C-alpha cells in the first residue's frame, strides 16, 4: 500500500531479472548452435570448398571442435561476455570491431525512425479517437490500412524518386557521420528513417486509437469533463496515459521489425550499418560474423522488451502494486 512510484516500479523490475537472465541464456545458446547445427563439417562450411587440408585442420583446432559441445559453449559465452565474438575468416577483422563500427548508424536510424513514427502516430491517433467516426478518423483508418500494405522497400524507392531524384532535396544514398557534419547527417538519415518507420506509424496508430476510443467512453472521461478541464488536459492525462499500455507493448515488439527492416533499408540506401553487415556476411557465408550479429541483435531485442515491460509500472500504478 502507498508504494512510492520509483521503488515500487523498481522492485517489480528486479523481480523480473531472473527470467530475463534465463531468456538471454537461451538466446545465446541457440545462437551458438548456429555454427554447430550446420550439416557437415563446420570448419569446411566456414572456409568453403577450396580450403586446403592444413587450413581446415588449423580451424578445427581453433574452434576446438574435438572438445565437447557444452565446454565449447561455456568458452564461447565467456569470450562473448568479455566482448570477444571471434574473428571473421573472410576479412580477418574481429567481429566485435566490425559491429561496433556500424552500430551507431543502425541505432541512429532506428531511433530517428521510431521517434518520428511515435510522434506522428500519437498525434494522429489522439485526433482520430477524439473525433471517432468523423471524416479525419475514417480517412486515417483507410490510409493506415493502405500504409500497412506498402512494403518498406517500395516506399524507399518512391521516396528516393521524389525527394532525391526529382526534387534533389536529399541524398539518395550514403551516410554522413554526425561528428563530420550534423546537417548532412540529418539529411542522410531522413529518407531511410521514413521508409523504415512508415509501417510502424500505421501499426502504432491503430493500436492507440482503438484503446483511446475505449478509454474516452469511460466514466473517468465524463468525470474529467464534468470537472471543467481543458480538452488538451483531458486527452493527455485522462485519456492518453491510461490508453498507452498496448502502445508500449507494441513498440517493444516492433523493435524486432525495425531491426529486420533496417537490413533492407540499409542495403537500399547504402548505409554502413549493422543490417548491411548482416547481408554482406550472409552473402559471403561469413558465419562467425553472422553468429556475432545474431547474438547482438537477439540480446538487444530482449533488453528493449524488458525495458518497455518495466515502463508499464510507471504508466499504471495498479500494475506495480500487483493489482493487475
Amino acid at each position, binding site marked *: *500500500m*502507498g508504494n512510492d512510484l520509483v521503488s515500487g516500479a523498481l522492485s517489480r523490475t528486479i523481480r523480473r531479472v531472473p527470467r530475463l537472465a534465463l531468456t538471454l541464456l537461451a538466446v545465446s545458446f541457440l545462437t551458438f548452435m548456429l555454427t554447430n547445427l550446420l550439416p557437415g563439417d563446420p570448419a569446411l562450411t566456414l572456409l568453403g570448398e577450396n580450403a586446403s587440408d592444413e587450413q581446415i585442420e588449423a580451424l578445427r583446432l581453433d574452434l576446438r571442435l574435438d572438445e565437447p559441445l557444452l565446454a565449447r559453449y561455456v568458452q564461447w559465452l565467456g569470450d562473448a561476455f568479455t566482448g570477444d565474438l571471434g574473428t571473421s575468416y573472410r576479412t580477418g577483422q574481429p567481429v566485435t570491431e566490425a559491429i561496433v563500427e556500424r552500430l551507431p548508424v543502425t541505432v541512429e536510424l532506428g531511433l530517428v525512425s521510431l521517434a518520428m513514427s511515435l510522434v506522428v502516430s500519437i498525434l494522429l491517433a489522439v485526433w482520430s479517437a477524439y473525433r*471517432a*467516426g*468523423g471524416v479525419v478518423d475514417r480517412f486515417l483508418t483507410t490510409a493506415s490500412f493502405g500504409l500497412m500494405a506498402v512494403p518498406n522497400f517500395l516506399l524507399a524507392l518512391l521516396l528516393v524518386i521524389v525527394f532525391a531524384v526529382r526534387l534533389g532535396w536529399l541524398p539518395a544514398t550514403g551516410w554522413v557521420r554526425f561528428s563530420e557534419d550534423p546537417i548532412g547527417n540529418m539529411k542522410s538519415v531522413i529518407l531511410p528513417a521514413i521508409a523504415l518507420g512508415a509501417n510502424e506509424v500505421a501499426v502504432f496508430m491503430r493500436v492507440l486509437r482503438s484503446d483511446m476510443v475505449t478509454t474516452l467512453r*469511460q*466514466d*473517468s472521461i*465524463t*468525470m*474529467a*469533463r*464534468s*470537472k*471543467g*478541464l*481543458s480538452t488538451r*488536459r483531458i486527452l493527455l*492525462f*485522462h485519456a492518453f*496515459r*491510461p490508453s498507452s499500455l498496448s502502445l508500449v507493448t507494441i513498440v517493444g515488439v516492433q523493435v524486432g521489425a525495425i531491426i529486420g527492416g533496417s537490413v533492407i533499408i540499409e542495403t537500399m540506401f547504402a548505409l554502413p550499418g549493422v543490417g548491411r553487415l548482416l547481408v554482406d556476411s550472409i552473402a559471403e557465408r561469413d558465419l562467425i560474423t553472422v553468429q556475432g550479429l545474431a547474438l547482438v541483435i537477439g540480446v538487444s531485442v530482449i533488453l528493449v522488451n524488458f525495458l518497455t515491460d518495466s515502463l508499464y509500472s510507471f*504508466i*499504471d*500504478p*495498479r500494475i506495480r*502494486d500487483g*493489482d493487475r
Partner: protein
Amino acid sequence: MTSPDELLLEVVDVTTSFDTDLGRLVAVDGVSFRLHRGETLGVVGESGSGKSVLARSVLRLVGDRNAQVTGRVVLRGSDVLKMPDRELRRLRGGSAAMIFQDPMTALNGTMRIGSQLSESLREHLGLRRRQQRDASIELLRSVGIPDAERQLRSYPHQLSGGMRQRAMIAIALACGPDLLIADEPTTALDVTMQRQVLDLLDRQRAERSMSMMLITHDLGVVAGRADSIMVMYAGRIVERAPARRLFTAPRHPYTDGLLRSIPRLSDEPGRELATIPGSPPIVIGGSTACSFAPRCPRAQARCLNELPLLVEDARTDSPSSSDGHAYACFYPLGTESGDAALLGNRRAGSTAAGLPMAAFGPTGDGVPT
C-alpha cells in the same frame, strides 16, 4: 443573495436522442423540472429509463456524435445548452459537479488522488501549489477520510470502496458547486456504507446550501432525503411530487409498482415482494402511447393509442403548480376511473395490452381483492 426560495436550475422540455441503427432512440423525452437552492431532487427509475442521459444532458456532457439535445437548461440564469464553451468549462466543476456510481471507473486510475483534486482547484480557483495542497487536505478531511495528508499520494485502487467514493465526492465538491448531480452514488456499495455516503452527501448539501440531483433506481435511497421526487420511465417523467406525497399517495401505477418492490421492516416474514412484470422498452422515434401500458395492471385501449401527458393532480394542496404533484396517466390510483379500469381488467383476466392479471401476483396490482 441566497434566499431559500432561489431558483437554481430550471430544465425545460429537454429531449435527448441518439441516432442508432434502429432509428432515433429517444433516451430523454420532454423532461421539465425546477430545482431550488439547497433542495434535493430524487430521480428514480429502472435501468435504461434515461436517468444518466438526463444527468449528462444537464451539464451538456452528452458528447456522442450521434446525439442531439434540445430544450433549455437554465442554471443560475444562463442556458447551459447554448453557452459558449469557455463559459461551459467554468460552469462544469465550478458551479455544477457530478459524481458517479463506481469511483473505480470514474476516477483516473493512473493519477494520485491529490492530483485529481488539485487539477480542479488550479483550473477554477487558480490556487497555487501550496494552497492546492492545504485545500485538498481540508477537502479530504471534510468527507471523512482519515490520514488525509498521506491519502493525497494514494492512487484510487489503494483505497477501500467507501474511501474511494468519499474521495470522488471530495473531488466533485472541490470548487464549491451550487449543484451536485449524483448518479447512483451508492449502488456499488454495501448497505452500511450506502447509508454513510448518503448521510455525507446530505450533510455537505446542507453545509454548503447546495442543491442536489440524487439519481437512483431505488426509491428506498431517496426516502427521507429528497424534498421532491421525479419518477422516470422510458425517458419521460411519469410522476413528480413532493417526497412525502409520492410515498403516501402515488398516482401512477408505475410509482405504485416501485413502492411495492421496496422491502419494509414492517413486512410480515415470508411476504413476497411485488415485482413489475417485464422490462422497460427502448423508445425509437417518438411515443404515441403510454410506454408503461404493456406492463400496467390498469392498461385500457386508450393507453395503447394515446400518449398521457403530465397533468397536475387536482387534489393537490399546494397551489404552486410547477412544484406540485403531477402524473402522466389516464387511469391513476385513487380515482374512480382508475379503480374501474383495474376492476375491469381483473374481471377480464387480462389487461388491454394482453397481459394476464396473474402476472402481478396476489398483491401486485395495487388494490386488495
